[in-house]
């Protein structure tokens, strides 16, 4: 009997557009998952000085957050997800909109996944040691 051996085919999600900087506000993914406008206390009669101040605040907050992500790299991180699911993995990276987390050695009840992508909508919180 000549049995055809099944071949494992792994399809990875399509990566970002190689021609853009990776952040495309017109991309269907961004429109579907992110807000269509950035949060601000913007009203039509707001003066540019206040807008400027707000932008500075936003930049500062974002910079600190990015540094936090940087310091998380290659550390063991615990993810608390919905349905009381708690998993641990080595943090790799997050994408620019904080929609997905790339991790390695994800410990799940069915074994250790070498590489995984965790959706941020499934995560409630994550914690790590300094």
């Amino acid at each position, binding site marked *: 009997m000549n049995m055809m051996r099944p071949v494992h085919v792994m399809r990875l999600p399509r990566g970002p557009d190689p021609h853009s900087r990776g952040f495309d506000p017109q991309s269907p993914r961004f429109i579907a998952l992110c*807000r269509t406008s*950035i*949060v*601000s*206390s913007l009203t039509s009669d707001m003066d540019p000085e206040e807008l400027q101040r*707000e932008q500075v*605040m*936003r930049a*500062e*907050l*974002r910079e*600190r*957050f990015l*540094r*936090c992500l*940087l*310091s998380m790299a290659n550390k063991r991180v615990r993810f*608390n997800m*919905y349905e*009381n699911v708690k998993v641990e993995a080595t943090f790799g990276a997050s994408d*620019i*909109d*904080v929609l997905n987390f790339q991790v390695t050695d994800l410990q799940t009840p069915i074994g250790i996944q070498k590489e995984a992508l965790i959706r*941020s*909508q499934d*995560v*409630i*919180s*994550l*914690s*790590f*040691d*300094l």
Partner: protein
Amino acid sequence: MQTDWSSLGPAHWSALTHKHVSVRADNGHELRGHVVTVDPVSASLVLLDSGGSKVHVVLGHSVKQVQIQDQDQDQDPEQKTRLETLFTDSDPAQNQSLDLDRARTRLLDWIHLNRVPVEVQGAGLVVAGGVVTVNPPFRAKDCVGLNQVVLDRVQRLIRNQPRDPDQDLDQDPDQDQPRDQGQDQDPDQPRDQGRHIDQPQDQSQP
């Protein structure tokens, strides 16, 4: 008080930094700690544990309520500085200007050698007409630029720069180790020469 945490805006989030808060999340769990920052893109809250050794990040979409604890307590200035510098570079700055000048000249020559236009500007170097700037102390992480390709190129150049033979340098984590450390053997020589001497000698014996 907050009905929709994600739409509060950077002004509100900024006002919360350094405060000790209690956050209630979607799963009913409550997390307490000092606010390090709030990400304006995803409204995620970064908290430092009271013990000071654990960091919790609560994703913006799952924040139900944020309450400030100890509102009247004055900000401990030490705690404040700790929070601000929590994730920043902790490398000791090499402040000897002589070393910096020397390092700059060496890097300038190295980049020139690699046919990349570079010139001195202020305390640092400017590559390709301002596309990338290298600040003292001229490590790979001190490169600043908007163009990713050029930035990567300059960083590679710095990493592959030959070590300074005259200076007693500490191990810089950015520098690559020399690649051929383990290959001292002459590649022409067969490696297993003289190894197969352990042939069983007593096969003929009964």
